[in-house]
């Protein structure tokens, strides 16, 4: 029986638009296909006008949004391809498999650019850090990422993990993959020509995840939980073979295009190629190698079975492609061909099952213009528990409490489960504010960061998103890298709520402002909406990933290489505020709206001085101050370098802001006394103050505190 358009997830207006375009009613398979392809997950119908605000050219950009991943120029003829993608809904339902297939999916996006995947990072937003439920969910997610990433041989070099009760029912799993590709052999999905073959390589097709994209485009109700599609199981072993096979085929010039099969499987990959290339395509569902019996053509077309790629090639190269696939023990079948009629056609033997304009399937669908409304102002900050620095023990209590908080505590229990060293290029492994890998092919280092800060975005989405982005940029600068470009994942609740939509729009503007002002273009990304479930919804959680490049290996300045006798400097503005800080949340302060100033000139000045400091070797270590503020950064530096710091900061009423405030461009440097003057002049025009000296085995501050490092470490490691 033909399903109602609502059952496949379409709105009435959309259904009418379909009839208008076609001049007829769609048949059942067509309706199912359009339901999936016009879902939020596949079509970006709620966010397309917003994403258009992102600057996406200039600087080092070689390939902006519009392909499977963005690419930047990393020198020596080599490009870095990268993108972040969400796998939130699947991970909520099946943490292990959901997270694992998330990693597999983003790796294939990078592979589709012709790039060899060289690193992944994972962004996890998990529920209340002290609850048993979160712990078991987190265990599944982490084991899923580890199980997949480790076996596939791509190091997981970093990421970001945060905890907040708002994610109890809706954990977020964002995965970013980075690959390298010779700039003269980038693969595009826009270059298919009539007569070329569409060849499926990889696993057999089963009924996995049919209509998973539509599932990811709605709220999680108890109903959808039970009606969930058959779960996709990732097979990292096959993915490893698929990577080697596709790169092997590509390196011998046997293909003209390549596309991963993510959401909506064969349908999305083939229709997107046709739509982007301005051609048509015919898919023969009876030629698809199947794992299950009696699959209907539309099921074959929409199956989300993992570890498959679609290759576009001239017919004469088919035998060689088949031979290569056999070597890697993969299925390989020509399942269709590029045509010149602009139609996306599915044939089952001689029967035409689907015939739709390719642009309507894999191009764009009508935009959904959701109403937007600014939420009422948040109440002015009430200091329910006013921090008073002179209260004995206050500073120390807060420091220790925060160090042991899941958000700021040691995350090694997570990342030691990831193989972060395979490929032997990991220069700075997980555990720092930045991850660094080497590109062996051109001898350069690249820096990778990932940030998400829902609490600041919740207070004010524009400055919150800007601050999130800047938090990903500053550690790059301090370590000596210039940023190249960014990728992002917009994780939000339902856009159909006008206030949510306003928040979403404003945070996109925040990202766009920084991208423009600091010249850090957006080259790829992903959107995940409807992250809410009965009774709970997530805070606005835009996540950003940035890639930076070091001029020389020697420029790399590490975070925790304190030396005895180093002078400790705080460099940067004093713009930090308790608003939206960890301390504020701990002590129950109410936030005020618009907590930060976004001052791009200051950031640029900070960047210049930071880069100068590393290039001229003026410091022995440097760390951008982030979550938890100055004192937490200091404690982490001490723990990691096994050296103490004697702080010399006068006690004043402003002490809590200074020590625990967040936001603004600030960094902590340890400077050999011989470099002091040069260091200070590198920061001319920006406040720098000497706040202490490295040495001993305590973190101390006059009469305020004096705590042995091993004690700090014990608490931090929980």
């Amino acid at each position: 029986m033909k399903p109602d358009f609502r059952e496949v997830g379409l709105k009435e207006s959309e259904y009418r638009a379909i009839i208008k375009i076609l001049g007829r009613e769609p048949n059942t398979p067509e309706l199912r296909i359009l339901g999936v392809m016009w879902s939020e997950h596949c079509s970006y119908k709620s966010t397309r006008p917003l994403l258009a605000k992102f600057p996406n050219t200039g600087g080092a950009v070689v390939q902006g949004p519009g392909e499977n991943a963005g690419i930047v120029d990393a020198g020596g003829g080599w490009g870095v391809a990268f993108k972040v993608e969400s796998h939130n809904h699947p991970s909520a339902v099946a943490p292990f498999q959901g997270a694992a297939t998330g990693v597999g999916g983003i790796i294939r996006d990078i592979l589709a650019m012709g790039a060899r995947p060289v690193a992944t990072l994972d962004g996890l937003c998990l529920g209340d850090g002290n609850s048993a439920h979160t712990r078991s969910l987190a265990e599944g997610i982490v084991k899923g990422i580890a199980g997949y990433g480790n076996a596939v041989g791509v190091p997981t070099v970093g990421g970001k993990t945060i905890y907040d009760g708002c994610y109890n029912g809706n954990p977020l799993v964002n995965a970013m993959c980075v690959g390298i590709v010779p700039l003269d052999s980038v693969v595009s999905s826009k270059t298919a020509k009539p007569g070329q073959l569409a060849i499926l390589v990889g696993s057999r097709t089963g009924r996995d995840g049919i209509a998973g994209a539509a599932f990811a485009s709605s709220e999680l109700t108890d109903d959808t939980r039970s009606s969930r599609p058959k779960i996709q199981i990732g097979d990292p072993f096959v993915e490893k073979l698929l990577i080697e096979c596709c790169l092997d085929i590509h390196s011998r010039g046997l293909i003209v295009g390549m596309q991963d099969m993510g959401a909506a499987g064969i349908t999305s990959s083939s229709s997107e190629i046709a739509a982007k290339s301005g051609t048509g395509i015919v898919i023969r569902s009876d030629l698809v190698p199947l794992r299950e019996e009696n699959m209907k053509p539309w099921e074959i077309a929409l199956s989300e079975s993992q570890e498959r790629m679609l290759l576009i090639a001239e017919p004469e190269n088919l035998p060689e492609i088949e031979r290569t696939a056999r070597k890697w023990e993969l299925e390989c079948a020509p399942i269709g061909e590029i045509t010149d009629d602009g139609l996306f056609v599915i044939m089952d033997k001689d029967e035409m099952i689907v015939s739709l304009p390719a642009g309507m399937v894999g191009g764009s669908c009508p935009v959904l213009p959701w109403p937007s409304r600014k939420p009422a102002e948040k109440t002015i900050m009430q200091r329910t528990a006013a921090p008073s620095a002179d209260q004995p023990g206050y500073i120390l209590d807060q420091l220790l409490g925060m160090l042991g908080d899941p958000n700021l505590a040691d995350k090694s229990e997570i990342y030691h489960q990831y193989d972060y060293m395979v490929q032997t290029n990991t220069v700075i492994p997980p555990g720092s504010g930045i991850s660094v890998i080497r590109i062996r092919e051109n001898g350069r280092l690249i820096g990778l960061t990932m940030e998400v800060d829902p609490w600041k975005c919740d207070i004010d989405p524009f400055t919150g998103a800007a601050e999130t982005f800047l938090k990903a940029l500053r550690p790059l600068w301090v370590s000596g890298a210039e940023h190249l470009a960014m990728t992002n994942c917009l994780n939000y609740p339902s856009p159909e709520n006008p206030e949510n939509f306003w928040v979403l729009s404003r945070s996109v503007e925040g990202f766009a402002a920084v991208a423009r002002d600091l010249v850090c273009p957006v080259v790829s990304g992903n959107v995940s909406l409807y992250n809410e479930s009965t009774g709970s919804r997530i805070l606005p959680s835009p996540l950003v990933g940035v890639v930076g490049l070091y001029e020389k290996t020697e420029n790399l300045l590490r975070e925790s290489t304190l030396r005895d006798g180093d002078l400790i400097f705080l460099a940067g503005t004093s713009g930090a505020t308790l608003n939206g800080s960890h301390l504020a949340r701990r002590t129950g302060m109410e936030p005020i709206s618009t907590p930060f100033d976004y001052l791009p000139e200051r950031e640029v000045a900070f960047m210049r001085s930071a880069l100068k400091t590393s290039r001229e070797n003026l410091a022995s270590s440097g760390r951008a101050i982030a979550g938890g503020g100055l004192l937490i950064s200091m404690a982490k530096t001490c723990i990691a370098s096994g050296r103490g710091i004697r702080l010399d900061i006068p006690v004043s009423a402003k002490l809590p802001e200074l020590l625990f405030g967040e936001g603004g461009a600030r960094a902590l440097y340890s400077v050999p006394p011989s470099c002091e003057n040069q260091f200070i002049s590198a920061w001319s025009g920006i406040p720098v103050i000497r706040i202490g000296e490295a040495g001993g085995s305590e973190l101390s501050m006059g009469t305020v505190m004096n705590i042995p490092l091993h004690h700090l470490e014990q608490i931090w490691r929980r």
Partner: protein
Amino acid sequence: MKTSVVVFPGSNCDLDVVHAVRATLQTEASLVWHEDSELPEGTELVVLPGGFSYGDYLRCGAMAAKSRIIGAVRKHAERGLPLLGICNGFQVLTETGLLPGALLANRSLSFICDYCHVRVERNDTPFTCMYGKGQVLRIPIAHYEGLYFLPAADLDALEREGRVVFRYCSPEGDVDERFSPNGSLNGIAGVTNTRGNVLGMMPHPERAGESLLGSSDGAVLWRSLHKWLEGSLGK
């Protein structure tokens, strides 16, 4: 030193080994496909690299142990030439019976990727002749199944014969259960055959090849092999 690195479907440290050997010794190292039945002419060292051969889906290394190339690898070892199994390669060696024992799931039931310390128990093997006896190496591990197991009587015999080459230890070289990251019996991180030319080890020497990446302690293993081969083959 002519090195052949066997590639099984799912191997993922194969290229790392090739790079490490080339970078350390500036000599040739080539990849050999698991379906081949012969090793390249003149192969002096065979390495079974780390990774997840056949997904490690049945038991680690079990399916790889049945690969066609294993026949040639066995012959290579029988000729007394050095054969090194790293991580998954170690698991393959125990599954083929070229080395005794089995590698079980880590005590923590988690994958562990980290640096650890191992003590060189013997420096009279082709693999360790340039290390000092008792020297402590800082070297990475990355495995889920690295707990070395052998029934008690066999374990005693192994120890009596002095076939333990590497043992997990503290940075100072003390051996104790606390310093064994995976719960290996007797802290065993690497063992050899009676003849001393087959070594299986869980730590990854190819990941400890340059100080930029954190340690260069592993490079000495390639140099040892090079020196030993030159000596024994009278080059």
